[in-house]
């Protein structure tokens, strides 16, 4: 039925980094929160027509402590910013941020005093999804791009390479 039929009793070899990255990308758990009209598109992405469960991420978690992906879906007001920062800081590492829609990317049409001109002024954004609002396909495409990014995340070798470079510099 599944992968075990093809593999049988066999051994697979891979690197720790690769398999951990694969695990991380296959089970991204987004935090449940929406800010504006983009949230409606995000909700419908999770429903049956577009079905975000196909990518192993149907589990929208109501607690940020169980989530590792923040989809900033909508206009961020300055008054909302402390709450968003708090949610982000409560999320467990490693964590990723998607800026969904024109407002989260750049403030969008709201070029005014109460609106944050792009969430990247406060949070490290991994993927920007333009659109006002982006269609569910757009959000899914952005999530797939994030999957690609996570698959290439050199979280182990990066440390090793940095150590090596430091040693070279010292010598």
């Amino acid at each position, binding site marked *: 039925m599944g992968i075990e039929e093809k593999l049988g009793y066999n051994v697979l070899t891979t690197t720790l980094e690769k398999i951990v990255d694969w695990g991380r990308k296959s089970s991204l758990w987004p935090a449940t929160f929406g800010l504006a009209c983009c949230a409606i598109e995000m909700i419908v992405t999770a429903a049956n027509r577009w079905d975000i469960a196909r990518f192993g991420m149907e589990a929208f978690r109501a607690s940020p402590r169980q989530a590792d992906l923040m989809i900033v879906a909508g206009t961020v007001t*300055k008054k909302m910013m402390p709450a968003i920062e708090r949610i982000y800081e409560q999320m467990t590492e490693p964590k990723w941020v998607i800026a969904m829609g024109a407002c989260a990317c750049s403030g969008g049409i709201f*070029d005014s*005093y*109460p609106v944050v*001109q792009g969430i990247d002024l406060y949070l490290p954004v991994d993927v920007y999804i333009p659109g006002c609002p982006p269609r569910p396909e757009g959000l899914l495409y952005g999530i797939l791009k994030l999957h690609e990014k996570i698959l290439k995340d050199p979280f182990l070798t990066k440390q090793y390479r940095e150590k090596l470079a430091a040693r070279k510099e010292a010598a």
Partner: protein
Amino acid sequence: MHPAAELLKSKFPSEVVEVMEFRGDTTVVIKPGRIKEIGLFLRDDPTVAFKYLSVVAGIDYFPQSPRFAVVYNLYSHKNHNRLTLKAYLESDTAPVIDSVTSIWATADWHEREAYDLLGIKFRGHPGLKRILLPQDWKGFPLRKEYPQRGE
């Protein structure tokens, strides 16, 4: 003319500055000093009976002086009619007017909004603090000199 405007003119001849009519709506421009007395009179007079205050709004007419105005939209359930009171405030730098919260409880949040966005002070308000913006916000964003993106 609106019966309430007539009544105000006869009752407070020194306070009524102007009565304007536009497409059936009457606006009475008054001096800001005795707003509480005028409000109480309009609420408790049995013939006009403006028991309901729809909105209190602050206005900034920047290049003009007097610069700030406060507008009260009143509604009478008894007579099914409306009246607008408008008071231009004396000071262009520290605008202030008496609070009407003791007359219409609605005024509480509306006055806080006018304070929050325009910096108009309401004397005698039970808790005049910001209502929409964060408490530590600097400046008053609906004033004309306020930069579009904030300070």
